[in-house]
């Protein structure tokens, strides 16, 4: 009888489910006003870069089960359009078992001009546009081919230095680079195996041009043998044309219930052809008229192979091997690196899993180094011990800990990881269905000896997150996190002009708080929160971004939003070039927006 009643209810429910679902979507559009920035506008643009004007803040449209035979899934999402520094769009459509089309577009402003960097004489004002389109045929079939195209371009203006004997001259120029990558292949999908064979190629072009008309005294105003140096004209062109291709094979196999194997091989061979010309005039040490061309290639192969064996329901053994090799044909840079790792996992008791293992890395590298610059070739051998544990109690508390201790024969560079200890832990608890607490901590301690003195690096961090959603967050929700972190670095070096020993010291002690609380009902909802970052040490920093908002429901499909944001940045007491370089800013941003939804 119970089964018959169930079938009856299920029948009615199934009939209801077969009706196409209504599309959903929303749009948020409005206006942003900016009061400020007070302080450095270049720093504001480098860090925040939000401007004034009408904006489409958000748009999304989903058709979960539309009528028609061309597609049975359609979704579109767009964020931050209307002169915003970051525009994104994502699109997906498809028909199950026939095709799946995904596309994404991103337009990011890359503005950077800070008084404290490179004497304030280097700047970027670019727009980076990235797009990716992939079309997969018969995604659920055993064999599914795919094709894809992606592009990334950066266009804009910049400021850099033109370097000549005894002086360097800040000059403005135009930057333009673009990379197009085409790829295609097939995917083999079975219950026990998967493989992807992919072939791709890229086309790269970069054209930078720097011009100077009019006198430019450069950074050195001291006369050179009684004559002041000056750049009166410059025409510099940097033209790079590159191509490349790659072949990729990825495969995974489940040949037995107790064994999984997966691996990948990737070979790429990019190359660049370069033409460079510069013609400079003025009061210079020597006539400058340069023309260079070069061709470089970088065959690069990498691969990995890993296996997971489960000889017992409580035991897992994971073995992996990785390798990476490259060779620059022009610059004699060569790199052969390999890593082998063996790790075991044992469920020793209910809720307790221990793991332990060993990793071995070996590598050889050679580079072109100037005379008196040091060895051209060196090798590395590293032994790493691994250990970890996971503990779970019946109260929903989960604790995870991970330890790594490495010892190396040497290091490639003075600041490389060499003899280190890495310890991480995380705890997660859900005392209530609506309350989740997470805590984590980490320590990384590295030392790298050298005859001048040892490089010591120590970083520590402790953080906690809380998320509370009583009654599903309909009336009140709270999300917050706090992190305390510290970094300490010390390494000796020789002062170039005197060869006296000195120490490069870097310290940072920071606190970060982020939070967002929302409360209200169906008619009115209030929100407040934001982030606050403070750091003391070598570069004291204060960065505050509080936010407050009110959302009022005007009708079932229309809401109004008012939002206030503050961005405040300061570096109290930070002396750069022996004098204060004010980079701070303050700005208040107001947004008035309407939110319209389909349902």
């Amino acid at each position, binding site marked *: 009888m119970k089964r018959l009643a169930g079938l009856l209810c299920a029948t009615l429910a199934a009939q209801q489910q077969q009706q196409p679902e209504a599309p959903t979507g929303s749009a948020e559009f409005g206006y942003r006003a900016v009061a400020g920035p007070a302080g450095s506008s270049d720093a504001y643009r480098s860090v925040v870069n939000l401007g004034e004007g009408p904006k489409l803040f958000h748009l999304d449209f989903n058709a979960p089960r539309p009528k028609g035979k061309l597609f049975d899934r359609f979704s579109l999402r767009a964020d931050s359009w209307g002169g915003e520094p970051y525009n994104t769009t994502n699109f997906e459509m498809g028909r199950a078992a026939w095709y799946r089309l995904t596309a994404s577009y991103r337009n990011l402003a890359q503005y950077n001009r800070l008084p404290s960097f490179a004497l304030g004489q280097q700047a970027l004002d670019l727009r980076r546009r990235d797009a990716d389109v992939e079309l997969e045929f018969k995604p659920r079939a055993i064999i599914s081919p795919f094709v894809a195209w992606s592009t990334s371009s950066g266009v804009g203006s910049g400021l850099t230095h033109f370097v000549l004997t005894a002086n360097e001259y800040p000059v403005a120029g135009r930057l333009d680079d673009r990379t197009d990558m085409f790829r295609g292949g097939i995917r083999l999908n079975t219950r026990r195996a998967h493989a992807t064979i992919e072939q791709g190629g890229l086309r790269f072009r970069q054209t930078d041009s720097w011009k100077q008309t009019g006198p430019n005294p450069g950074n050195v105003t001291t006369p050179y043998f009684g004559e002041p140096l000056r750049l009166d004209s410059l025409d510099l062109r940097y033209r790079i044309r590159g191509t490349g291709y790659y072949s990729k094979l990825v495969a*995974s196999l489940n040949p037995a219930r107790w064994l999984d194997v997966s691996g990948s091989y990737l070979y790429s061979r990019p190359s660049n052809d370069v033409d460079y010309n510069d013609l400079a005039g003025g009061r210079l040490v020597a006539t400058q008229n340069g023309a260079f061309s070069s061709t470089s290639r970088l065959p690069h*192969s990498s691969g990995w192979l890993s296996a997971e064996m489960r000889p017992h329901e409580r035991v897992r053994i994971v073995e992996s091997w990785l390798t990476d090799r490259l060779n620059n044909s022009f610059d004699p840079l060569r790199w052969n690196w390999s890593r082998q790792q063996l790790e075991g996992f044992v469920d020793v008791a209910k809720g307790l899993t221990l793991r332990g293992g060993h990793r071995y890395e070996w590598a050889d590298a050679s580079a072109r180094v100037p005379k008196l610059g040091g060895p051209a070739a060196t090798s590395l051998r590293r032994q790493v011990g691994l250990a970890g544990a996971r503990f779970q109690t019946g109260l929903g508390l989960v604790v995870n800990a991970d330890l790594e201790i490495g010892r190396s024969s040497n290091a490639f*560079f003075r600041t490389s990881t060499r003899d280190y200890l890495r310890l991480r832990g995380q705890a997660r608890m859900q005392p209530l269905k609506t309350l989740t607490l997470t805590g984590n901590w980490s320590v990384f301690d590295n030392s790298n000896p050298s005859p001048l003195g040892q490089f010591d690096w120590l970083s520590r961090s402790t953080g906690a997150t809380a998320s509370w959603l009583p009654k599903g967050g309909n009336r009140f929700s709270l999300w917050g996190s706090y992190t305390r972190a510290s970094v300490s670095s010390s390494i000796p070096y020789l002062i170039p002009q005197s060869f006296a020993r000195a120490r490069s010291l870097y310290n940072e002690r920071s606190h970060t708080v982020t939070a967002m609380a929302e409360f209200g009902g169906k008619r009115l909802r209030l929100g407040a929160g934001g982030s606050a970052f403070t750091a003391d040490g*070598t570069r004291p920093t204060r960065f505050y971004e509080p936010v407050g908002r009110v959302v009022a429901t005007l009708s079932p499909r229309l809401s109004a939003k008012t939002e206030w944001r503050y961005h405040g940045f300061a570096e109290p007491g930070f002396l*750069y070039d022996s004098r204060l370089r004010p980079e701070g800013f303050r700005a208040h941003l107001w947004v008035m927006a309407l939110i319209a939804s389909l349902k």
Partner: protein
Amino acid sequence: MRASALLWISLTAALAADVPKADVEICQACHEEVAKAFPAKRHSQQNCARCHTGFEKHQESAEAKDITNPLGLKPKAAEDVCLACHRNDRTQQGHIQSGHARGQTSCLACHSVHHDDQVKRAAPDINRQCAACHTVAWAEFQKPHRHPVTQGAMSCVNCHNPHGQPLSRVAKVQFNDTGCLSCHGDKRGPFAFEHAPVRLEGCASCHEPHGSTNPRMLTRPEVRQQCLECHSGANPVRDTLGGAPPAFHDLRSARYRNCTVCHTKIHGSHVSRALLR
């Protein structure tokens, strides 16, 4: 009475002739909310018993203890429920040695199988989910010089593969994959004159990829520190690359404390051995 009831059921059954013979229809009778929450064309096409073993016994007894709930299993066991179908998906290629697998973070920690948004697509949703556990990484994105993750322009999965990648914790750049270079293609090279640490140790040898208190997301507040820590001026030890001959730059001058004022092509140059152009 019984005859009319049987007729009613027969008619209903006739109307439901298109309903597939799967257990989900029976489960809906008691678990209507879960069945309604199933997204169209995704797991709703599957048999509930595929993930919830012990279905037949539960169907008779209607007791929760008689059926498997993956949420109540050990992480590895819960993962195996998903991987029974998804083990060889293209998204799981690096799963075996991934950080999440080593830390026994199961699929259910991020994915909710029953709900419509089981795979989050929007950047803010992805970031909020990762930040719930990766508190320290989230804090790094609150620093002033950062990738635009908190602004919603990028998400964690733009650089990291949460299902696994060969080198866990590290973005893909050093391993012959695009990584940082998918946006910063002008740094791809190859260059006629390489800057060795860029190629051998990756972008993280000088930059903090999440966020930094230092301009250009560098790991040091002044460029001279960044450079002189490797180019120490000492006749280097036999076993390290990265030395350079003394340049006799007078650090008392601001020009020489900003190395990139002259060494403008610090990522590699096609023209100048000293990376001047």
